[in-house]
């Protein structure tokens, strides 16, 4: 049955509508927390216009692992910016603010992630101003600390890593007795961005029912605090600080990562009664599953008992390879996986057949695999279609098609500096081998020299 629902899903994606078709989003965002949210909506079919301040644009264009660019683009810039239209708009200029207001008048959703007060006071396009011209607007402000409260009012800047630090998330994500560890993900940015869209989609539904827009304030630190579920009642009830436990899951027993014979690693989880019994059989210790100390999950979770159990498992795993443990997991019925690298994900045929590793044939960057929005929708599939562009790449398209500006009006916006394009530097400009036309929506765009407005 499920087979009938999902047969040829990938092949049929292009002949199905996207769920947010017709929704317009205006983005004044930078780094990851800001841009990742509109990117989720863009994969769900919304039309996202991203405004960057020319000529340098989004700071995450600087994210280059050990100095390696991705086709002359910021390698860490690509992911949070799919399917967008690219404006180079200087919001410091009154003319730039006026263009932003005109686009906002047409928009359903505006997203920004500057520090508190910047959009309102410096750029004159804050929520209080935009709701006057578009009362149905849904306006999402994202940053480290929200719009009010001590940290917001001290005007503290934030980053993903600051949130990992501030929330106690890094503290919990470490090995016992060792220093707190930073995730290799920008986890608070991405998770915060995603929770922001949960709120936006709820607001969109409210607007459909009532016609009313609203303002949403999102702090990336509050977002990660929200998902640290048990930690808060635990500390409140016991009066004790939640302590790091390395790879062991304090709420699931047994669940940990173990060193194998070849010094590679395998993760094992076996808490459900059948899983636990399966693991005990696989280890040749079926009696453990009946042992009164271990039989019941709540009893087994006791610190000393879990440690005793993990010791038994780690000695057993130490003689095996990750692949042997994976095989035994399937055979005996428990959960295990070798600790997979990013290579394992990118090349996994399963991920490709599902279209999670989605093939993108980008006119400017060429072909590559991109992560798809990870919810497959049988009638309205999300779709990654194109990738990042240089700053101001779609200025002419947006101003002509969305705002009906003519050539002279557009030129005067360039002349006063409200409109601009990319700096002539790697990660800001198109790839060196760009033919001057590929990816351009309006043909005459190609006639403008690179670096115009710099």
């Amino acid at each position, binding site marked *: *049955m499920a087979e009938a629902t999902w047969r040829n899903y990938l092949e049929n994606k292009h002949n199905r509508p996207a769920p947010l078709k017709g929704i317009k989003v205006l983005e004044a965002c930078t*780094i990851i927390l800001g841009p990742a949210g509109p990117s989720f909506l863009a994969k769900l079919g919304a039309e996202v216009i991203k405004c960057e301040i020319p000529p340098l644009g989004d700071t995450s264009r*600087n994210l280059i692992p050990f100095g390696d660019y991705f086709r002359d683009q910021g*390698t860490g810039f690509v*992911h949070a910016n799919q399917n967008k239209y690219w404006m180079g708009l200087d919001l410091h200029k009154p003319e730039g603010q006026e263009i932003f207001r005109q686009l906002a008048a047409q928009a359903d959703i505006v997203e920004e992630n500057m520090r*508190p007060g910047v959009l*309102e006071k410096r750029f004159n396009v804050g929520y*209080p101003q935009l709701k006057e011209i578009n009362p149905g607007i849904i306006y999402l402000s994202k940053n480290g600390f*929200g*719009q*009010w409260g001590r940290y*917001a009012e001290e005007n503290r*800047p934030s980053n993903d*890593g600051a949130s990992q630090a501030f929330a106690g998330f890094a503290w919990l994500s470490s*090995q016992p007795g060792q220093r707190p*560890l*930073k*995730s*290799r993900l*920008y986890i608070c940015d991405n998770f915060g961005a*995603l929770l922001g869209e949960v709120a936006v989609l*709820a607001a969109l*539904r*409210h607007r459909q029912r009532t016609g*009313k827009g609203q303002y949403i*304030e*999102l702090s990336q630190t*509050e977002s990660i605090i929200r*998902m640290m*579920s048990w*930690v*808060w009642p*635990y*500390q*409140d*009830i*016991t009066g004790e*600080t*939640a302590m790091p436990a390395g*790879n062991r*899951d*304090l709420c699931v027993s047994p669940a940990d*990562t173990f060193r194998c014979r070849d010094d590679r*690693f395998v993760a094992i*989880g076996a808490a459900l009664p059948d899983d636990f019994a399966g693991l005990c059989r696989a280890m040749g210790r079926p009696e453990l599953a009946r042992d009164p100390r271990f039989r019941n*999950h*709540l009893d087994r979770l006791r610190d000393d008992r879990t440690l005793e159990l993990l010791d038994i498992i780690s000695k057993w795993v130490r003689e095996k390879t990750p692949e042997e443990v994976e095989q035994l*997991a399937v055979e005996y019925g428990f959960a295990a*996986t070798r600790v997979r690298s*990013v290579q394992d994900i990118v090349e996994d*045929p*399963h991920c490709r057949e*599902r279209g999670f590793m989605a093939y993108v044939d980008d006119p400017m960057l060429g072909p*590559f695999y991109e992560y798809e929005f*990870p*919810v497959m929708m*049988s*009638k309205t599939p999300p779709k990654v279609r194109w990738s990042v562009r240089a700053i101001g790449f779609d200025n002419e398209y947006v101003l002509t098609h969305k705002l009906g500006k003519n050539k002279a009006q557009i030129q005067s916006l360039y002349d006063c500096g409200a409109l601009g394009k990319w700096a002539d530097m*790697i*990660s800001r400009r198109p790839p060196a081998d760009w033919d001057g036309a590929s990816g351009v929506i309006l043909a005459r765009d190609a006639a403008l020299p690179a670096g115009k407005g710099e």
Partner: protein
Amino acid sequence: MGTSSMAAWYRGQDDPQKAHTRLEALDDITVLDLSYNSYAGSFCTSLLAEFGAEVIKIEPPGGDFLRTCTPYGILHKGEGLNYLTEGRNKFHVTLNLEKEEARKMLADMAAQADVLLETFHPGTMDAWGIGYEQLKAVNPRLIFASITPFGQFGPKSNIRMTDYDNIIQARSGIHYATGEVLPEGKTLDDMPWAVPTKSGPWIGAAPAGAFMASGIMAALYWRDISGEGQALDCATSEAYASFDDWAYQWYQETGNVAERFGNLDIAGWLYCFAPTRDGAVFLGALRLEQWQAFADMVGKWDAWGAAQWKEMAPFMAKAEQEKWAGLVFAETQKYTNQELVAMSVDYSKNGRLAPIAPVIAPIGTPMDTLKDANWNDRGLFTPVDDPVYGPVVLAQAQYKMTETPPRTKWVCRPVGYDNGFVYLKYLSYGPRKLRELEESGIV
């Protein structure tokens, strides 16, 4: 308006203390949550329930195993701490889907519901006669959401493996490259902590829940336009993997596989945890001017030649990062966490490059977070006074909204607590019928 009057204006609009006086975005939506032993599923429907959806959590008569997944086995008034917090705003009923009559009851409820969420192995719901195609025939508007380890289709979708958070993290390619570096010449016997290290409490599972909540609301939006429901499919490890911003592109472009890099960042400079006199802080300065501001702030503007720096790229190479990290840490170790934070706040007002300043944040414990007046003032930890569980502190109010703010009205309920109300409301089953169902093991 000045910044603080702006702050006061926003607070006047969206302070969570006023949330209960506002409307709820999803209060016309009924969700059947069949998730089992799934934080992803429970978190997903919590997000919907915070917006007012009527979420009916359906458990087998013995209760959801997730109730027992609690740190060290600790219970609060008989309840596990994760279920306590993610049971919020839901109705908790029992139904034994192994029995045919129970499956008929489920189908009758699905006929009246908007969303059904399930986490069984693919094919299980079909075999029970309550899969998407079968329920669609009864209710074409139903949104049928499945969260599983491998998804509903693809070569691995038939693997029947339980979905634990630590497995999701290991499968996603993230766990692999987080953790301390094992220095050359050292072995794991010398430094057993220098291994791939998973993150946080259940961060592997939570993204699938949040993505699915987004997918469900996008599907609701589409349904309002088209009248059609649909099936949704999320694989937990894909959801977590998709938070990777650079490693997959780096690999495709150069063949480099992201490995552990301790508390530095392969893709970003200055972006690290740095030791201090009394602990450690996060340092962030991804823009050239912020990195210059950091150098200036620690008195190294001239010594480091910061005025001559032209772009960030030269600092990104591995050897450069390691070299500069040494220099930076030598400076941060001269100060306490609070001194460094105060220095950056001051620099943003009075520094040579003000208002540009580096981002500096102390690395705190979760107890520091819980006691931090800032978060308490913002309503994050306001206790929920629950009629069954008493006052419970949990995280809430994660976004502030002017019209339809999320809110936590109650925490969870014991197993089967809401059977009477829910089965009366949806199936008109009164106490007599309910007793029969209990006796025959159906509820």
